[in-house]
């Protein structure tokens, strides 16, 4: 890892265009409904509602949203980690032709770790505190590749070195609590990489880390995608991270996709009022300093059901009676100069700013 690196050096040059390569993961119309008993009746909450997106090899798809948007539930549903009871999952998630939502548990367990790896937000609770980190890596290697003890150990040392952990030969014997937060997240990534997975699902992988460490981890993940051709689904709330490493962006609000576009397109021409509002509300480190920020009013809790109206309408400055309809579709952006693959679910899309 060199000390100075252009952040997007290895990234695709020029505006990203949807690749012609077939998707490795194709999520189609995914819905997750939580059911709960409430007194005598039952209440249902639709946490994810008809979500579709594709993740292609060598590319990063970002799933962006804030609390309650359904982004994390989506990742749990894809990896089969939702609780066994109290929810209903519908739709399809084709991973190299197999539907992750219907494959038998044993097959899913086999896929997880070998072809499909996960990195979570909190490495401390994802690592076993009483097992040396090296052993936690060799376990995965041996289970999925059938490698011998010695070979697996060599592999663990190699992996730790690859994720930038200094002195990996010593570190394999250490326990999670002996490592710093950034180191632990590297170990998690090393475990995820153990079997050269084809798809990595990273759920807020840098949220618990400091910015300088975050930069290291992001750098590591994007190198992986560029060099190994891994497909990655990155779930985050941080638009800065999205701007830096992702190729395509899916923005979720209250369980539905409200906008989907290639990275540069989304940031240059945000069309959904939520995306535009979000971009306008965050203070930036570059550029002139505005007198005041332009917040989105209300809170993410102020939603209406999608079946009645646009869920964002209560917080939207452009919301009017036209938004009160239950059949809002995610349609290609009809605005002038829209890039192919730019989808938006909005009656009154935000005007495109001329540069």
């Amino acid at each position: 890892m060199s000390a100075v690196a252009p952040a997007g050096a290895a990234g695709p040059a020029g505006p990203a265009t949807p690749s012609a390569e077939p998707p490795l993961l194709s999520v189609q119309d995914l819905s997750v409904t939580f059911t709960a008993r409430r007194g005598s009746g039952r209440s249902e909450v639709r946490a994810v509602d008809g979500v579709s997106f594709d993740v292609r090899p060598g590319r990063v798809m970002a799933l962006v949203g804030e609390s309650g948007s359904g982004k994390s539930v989506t990742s749990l549903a894809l990896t089969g980690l939702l609780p066994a009871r109290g929810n209903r999952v519908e739709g399809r998630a084709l991973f190299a032709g197999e539907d992750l939502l219907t494959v038998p548990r044993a097959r899913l367990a086999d896929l997880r770790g070998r072809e499909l790896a996960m990195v979570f937000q909190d490495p401390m609770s994802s690592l076993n505190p009483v097992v040396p980190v090296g052993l936690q890596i060799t376990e995965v290697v041996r289970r999925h590749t059938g490698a011998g003890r010695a070979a697996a150990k060599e592999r663990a040392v190699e992996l730790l070195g690859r994720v930038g952990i200094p002195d990996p030969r010593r570190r394999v014997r250490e326990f999670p609590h002996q490592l710093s937060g950034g180191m632990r997240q590297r170990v998690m990534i090393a475990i995820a990489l153990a079997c050269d997975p084809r798809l990595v699902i990273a759920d807020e992988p840098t949220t618990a880390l400091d910015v300088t460490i975050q930069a290291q981890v992001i750098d590591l993940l994007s190198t992986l995608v560029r060099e190994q051709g891994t497909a990655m689904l990155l779930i985050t709330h941080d638009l800065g991270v999205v701007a830096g490493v992702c190729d395509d962006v899916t923005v979720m609000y209250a369980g539905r996709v409200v906008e989907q576009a290639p990275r540069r397109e989304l940031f240059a021409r945000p069309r959904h009022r939520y995306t535009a509002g979000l971009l306008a509300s965050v203070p930036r480190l570059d550029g002139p300093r505005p007198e005041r920020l332009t917040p989105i009013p209300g809170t993410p809790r102020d939603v209406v059901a999608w079946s009645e109206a646009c869920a964002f309408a209560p917080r939207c400055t452009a919301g009017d009676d036209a938004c009160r309809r239950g059949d809002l579709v995610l349609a290609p952006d009809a605005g002038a100069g829209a890039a192919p693959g730019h989808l938006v679910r909005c009656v009154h899309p935000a005007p495109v700013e001329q540069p």
Partner: protein
Amino acid sequence: MTAVLPPPAAAGAPSAPGPVDEPGVSLVRGAWRRLRRDPTAIVGAVLVAAFLLVALAAPLLAGYEPGRALPGNGVTPSSVPGPSPEHPLGLDASGVDLLTQLVYGARQSLVIGVVSTSLGLAAGMALGVLAGAFGGWVDVAVMRVVDIMLSIPSLLLAVSIAALLGQSPISVMLAIAAAQVPIFARLLRGSMLAQRGSDYVLAASSLGLRHRTVVMSHVLPNSLGPVIVQATLVLGTAIIEVAALSYLGLGDGNPATAEWGRLLVRAQARLQSDPHLALLPGACIAVTALGFTLLGESLREALDPKGRR
């Protein structure tokens, strides 16, 4: 002020939970709501309520006087009279109506259980607050005393107290209470120490609240949850202990007192011929203790802040 903007006109749709004009749901009320929906809590509450009802209404339910042998009762060394219209459960080994004995036994258990647990709770909480509120050397000193109390087996303590004060209900209560003091003291202290490190306690001191106010109106109320739960659980144990002490002959000296443990002792000799004499009081003890335990456990869950949503 741009703060909370009213929802734009178009979206007059019902807003998600927000501050509207209705009373808020406090922690206690929320816990109560969860309790009402918890089957464990309902079973526990029913058992405890039945026990309380029986104990309070003993004179109405019993029909006879406890501890007084009925003349010409027909108790022989090998058998006791079985159920009859006058005596639904028959007579016990000393010729008293068994139902009466059981019903008054509930009353006795309740009185001793509640009084001893209250004593233990009061003393334990006093020590716990002392240690938890002041910390430092006070904490160290109090906790050493508690450790010493904890190191004496409760039965040994009971024997000593009974030897000192003679066999009386009071010594039974004191013995049981003494065994409980360290439990409550340690629990409250630990709970208070945990609360003292929390943000809202820091927030309270940063507002310039007096130390006393911070402790009494923030730390203590928030530390009481586990203690209340423990008290419920301990009440169940206390009822068993009353019986155990009687069983060992350390209970109330008055032979006329109806007490479940004593009924067990007397039934021992007739275990072969009349097992119901032991089974019925045994069941009373077990069911009552179970009721309190179930209630305590579901209280613990209901008061857990993590369960709140």
